[in-house]
């Protein structure tokens, strides 16, 4: 279950709403393989208590994930990742991250960073996160 494989957190100071943060957190967990096709998501109530938000907020996040085709509710038994869910989650999150990287590069160029400096900075970021993340995540392809 998600509680054990993913440390999902909600930060109310971020500009995106708590429900969007939950959607992104679950998409990330699916995209990197921590949550696979056919696996069950926590109950609305369970996840609400874990991340300390109103259960309505989790229910909204699950409805949005269902609308994306990433999860499906099976009556009575819970919410599960769909067969297509992994591919959709990867596409959604990789697309979003590419946009963020593009913005960061444009910001760097606007500030006067050279191509070499940007490359160096990206390498430095990779090295920093490599040190912070000592244990590789399960199923983290590419």
């Amino acid at each position, binding site marked *: 279950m998600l509680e054990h494989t993913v440390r999902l957190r*909600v930060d109310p100071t971020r500009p995106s709403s708590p429900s969007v943060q939950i959607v992104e957190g679950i998409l990330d967990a699916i995209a990197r393989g921590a949550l696979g096709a056919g696996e069950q998501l926590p109950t609305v109530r369970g996840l609400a208590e874990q991340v*300390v938000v*109103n*259960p*309505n*907020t989790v229910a909204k996040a699950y409805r949005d994930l269902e609308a994306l085709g990433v999860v499906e509710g099976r009556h009575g038994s819970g919410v599960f990742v769909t067969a297509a869910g992994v591919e959709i989650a990867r596409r959604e999150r990789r697309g979003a991250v590419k946009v963020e990287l593009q913005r960061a590069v444009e910001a760097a160029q606007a500030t006067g960073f050279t191509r070499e400096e940007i490359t160096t900075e990206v390498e430095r970021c990779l090295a920093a996160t490599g040190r912070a993340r000592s244990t590789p995540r399960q199923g983290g392809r590419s």
Partner: protein
Amino acid sequence: MSTGRPAIEVADVRFRYAKAPLLEGLSLSVPTGETTALLGRNGVGKSTLLKLLMGLLKPRHGTLRVLGLDPLRNARELQALVGYVPDRPDAWPWMRVPELFRFFAVHHPRWNPDRARAWTERLGVPLDRTFRQLSRGEGMKAMLAAALAPDPEVLLLDEPFGGLDPVAREEMLRALVGALGERRRTVLVSTHELDLAARLGDRVAILETGAIRTEGPLNEVIGAGESGAAEALRVRLATADGEGW
């Protein structure tokens, strides 16, 4: 997601204390099953609005309905369906929590002693000390346990987190999230903390100079566009904290 009539409806309410008008045409509705966080400075009328909804005060003008009931005409019926947490522990200082609960058991038609016991245990409310001896956090936790004991459809919470230490605040917050997971409840909670508004509120309503000035999902209310409104409100709330948002 909500259907039918809002559980809480306030239309064009005016109220004044002896010296000055406080609420001047306040309107607000909270859809059934949703939580609205009421934000506003100290003294702006948040407690007054909650007291009007509980039938503890009488408006000069306008209508209030909770679950379709008029708080003044149907006070007893309404108070049985609504859990109310006042902004300070509301008990005689010589009372212990079990004594307060015995009082409620006699007067509250839907009092459930098992739930009262379960919530005091979950919240860690001391049972062997008088209210005079309880800290503010312990007293407020006792009030929340009392409000939840009858399993109310509606919760009216008046600054339940104000003046609490971080541990008590977290316990209260987690208890409320747990209570919202138990069943569908409609909640109006006044606070000045954006963190709590974001965690608990489906929507926020900002009360300013006598009326609700802005109302909607928190990130839309404070994050609309790139006008810096979010930052402005954050600064306003943060700097005004001492003087009482």
